[in-house]
């Protein structure tokens, strides 16, 4: 059989390793970035400022899920899913209300007094510091598990000849949630009155206002969506790895990069941007020697394969989103999906 012969030559072991380390890992972190970036890009487009506390909002959402987990520990076992995932809709609702509350308390008064966009950014940084301070005050700085002892973390191994393709339960839930969120958001933005109003405000606020669209409603809906998606992203990330209170800085930069790469104010762009940034990170830190080694017999003698051949050492992972950001700002400031560059 010729196919079997071809398969035998292919280095399955290494390819599956590549799939595990780059494709699946990139999809996971990319989905988390995408869930965050959708909110950031909506706020960017409608309220016109960079929302720095978004990373902390994700963490806050995960902590709400943790508190719910303590309050109702038995829910998950009844359904057969992790408790935190079952309770996630409540956490999303609470975080969405929190986002609206923050807007009422801090952003709306500034907006009403008509300050410059830069001052709004500064205010958002003030809010970021307050949230970080409170989170660490109540939660300490250690890491926590969002998996209760009663939940078991299922790990699926798909045999592909040689090494197994590994995927865990929280990762599947993350993909499912992202897909559902994207489809729901698409339907909302294209079919519903409010979604259309949001797009109108994002495109041209003055025109939207004179056509009778209530800016207050649009702003409130924006915060609700952004808060809910942030909570989902934070909870699912915490389910996949651990819950850390000081996540915000490490995640806000890739999220901004994703939002800007996708084009500010473009939700689809944010999803594409999130995945792009996620894949770039995993591709950049991947050790390419693993894939080159099986090709040793076919390569000329003088090429030596180093033990480690990665574009970026793992310690410098944060450099990757930053360079994507800089590259986009230099060559295509509107982003892939033609977002807005000016105020």
């Amino acid at each position, binding site marked *: 059989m010729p196919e079997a012969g071809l398969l035998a030559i292919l280095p399955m072991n290494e390819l599956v390793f590549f799939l595990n380390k780059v494709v699946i890992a990139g999809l996971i972190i990319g989905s988390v970035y995408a869930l965050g970036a959708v909110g950031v890009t909506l706020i960017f487009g409608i309220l016109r400022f960079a929302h720095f506390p978004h990373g902390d909002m994700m963490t806050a959402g995960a902590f709400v899920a943790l508190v719910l987990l303590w309050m109702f520990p038995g829910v998950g076992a009844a359904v057969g899913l992790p408790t935190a995932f079952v309770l996630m809709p409540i956490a999303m609702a609470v975080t969405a209300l929190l986002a609206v509350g923050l807007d009422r308390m*801090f952003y709306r*008064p500034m907006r009403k007094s008509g300050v410059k966009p830069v001052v709004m950014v500064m*205010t958002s*940084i003030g809010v970021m510091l307050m949230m*970080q301070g409170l989170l660490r*005050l109540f939660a300490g700085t250690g890491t926590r598990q969002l998996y209760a002892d009663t939940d078991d973390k299922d790990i699926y191994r798909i045999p592909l000849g040689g090494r197994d393709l590994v995927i865990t339960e929280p990762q599947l839930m993350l993909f499912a949630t992202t897909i559902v969120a994207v489809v729901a958001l698409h339907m909302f933005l294209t079919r519903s009155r409010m979604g259309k109003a949001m797009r109108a405000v994002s495109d041209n606020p003055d025109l939207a206002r004179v056509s009778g669209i209530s800016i207050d409603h649009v702003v409130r809906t924006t915060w609700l969506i952004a808060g809910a998606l942030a909570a989902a992203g934070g909870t699912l990330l915490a389910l996949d790895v651990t819950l850390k209170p000081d996540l915000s*800085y490490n995640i806000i930069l890739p999220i901004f990069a994703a939002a800007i790469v996708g084009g500010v104010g473009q939700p689809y762009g944010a999803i594409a941007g999130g995945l792009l940034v996620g894949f770039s990170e995993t591709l950049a830190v991947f050790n390419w020697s693993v894939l080159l080694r099986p090709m040793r017999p076919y390569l000329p003698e003088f090429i030596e394969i180093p033990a480690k051949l990665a574009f970026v050492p793992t310690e410098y992972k944060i450099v990757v989103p*930053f360079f994507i950001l800089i590259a986009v*700002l230099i060559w295509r400031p509107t982003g892939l999906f033609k977002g807005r560059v000016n105020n």
Partner: protein
Amino acid sequence: MNPSLREAGLFAGLILLVAGIFAWLGAAYGVRMLVEASCYAIIALGLTIQWGYAGLFNVGLMGFVAIAAFTTVLISYPVNDVFWSGDGPWMLGQAALTLAIGVAITLLLSRSTRIGVPKGLRTALTLVAAAITYLAVQGQLDPAATLIEREAGFIGGFGLPVWMGWAAGGVVAGLLGWAMGRITLGLRADYMAIATLGIAEIVKAFLKNADWLTRGTLTVSPLPWPVPTPQELGFVASRSAYLAVTAVMIVVLYVLLERAWHSPWGRMMRAIRDNEVSAAAMGKDINRRRLEMFVVGNFIIGLGGAALITFTTIFDPSSFAPLNHTFLIWVMVILGGAGNNLGAIFGALLVYVIWIMSEPVAIFLFTNAEQLGERLFGWEAPADLYTRALQMRVFVIGLTITLVLRFAPKGLLPEKVVKYD
């Protein structure tokens, strides 16, 4: 109230506060606090140029401070003979040569459209050349770094005078600011905030992990001082001498900035800040002027940061916590009064004194709360209550920023608006 009366009153109150701390905690502590506050005042002057004069948004202060501090270490730390007598310099030289050749080839290729190469091919060739350069330099640098770390620890410094290190630190911070400004100044204001935040994180990651260059988490100490050290003169005398140096720097910078502010250049800057469109209509090159502001501001920030880290005598890359320090300086500037140099200095001194004093206060409050909670509700406090108590200060910084921006956007010493009738 009359502005100058207000200034006099506020400064008098500040002097009383500082005198009280001197009486309470002793002169050595008081002078140390004043030196650190004066270094923060220099950084705040740099930031007030960027934010108050030009409306530029720099959230990467600690990145610029860190790179300036590192440059100071490199220039003024004693020479490491083990490094210079080994193979390290030779290998580093090779890597630098490769880098220079690679950059030259990449630049030439990026200009190759002039000899008729199609645009798409040009971009592809440039990217390939850049990638090859990067991999080649990395390939040469890795063995050099391993060798240096094994044999000499790190490359040490050049043993030059400290003031040269400070000046060089300022220049490097300015250059980094120039690069950031070139990329982000033409775009919306938020982009600069995001980009400066990113560059600060990268500078920190680099300084922390490049052990051959900075000793990483092993830290470099003791850093040489521009004045005799406490071992020679005693704490109070040597710290006072240091304070004299920083005070002279503040006075010189203040006089220069005031002169610049009241010159036609300063008037142009205010015009650009207050009405960009009309300034552009008058033929002012807005982005170029803003770039000037950003670079000058970063130079001063670097200067102050270098002085601050030199005073602490230890260069520890992981100590440049963006949360506390960057935004502490922001509070200094917006509370003191953006666009008013005296306000920045006043804000820096006041906020730093409060900041230093808030640590014992926070711990005092939390200890009492702990006892009270235990007595009343049988509440058992978590073991890391003290570290958590200090996080409260981050909350207070954030709250101060939002409150000041909302209720007193002009600060304690508002900018003096000059009116020409």
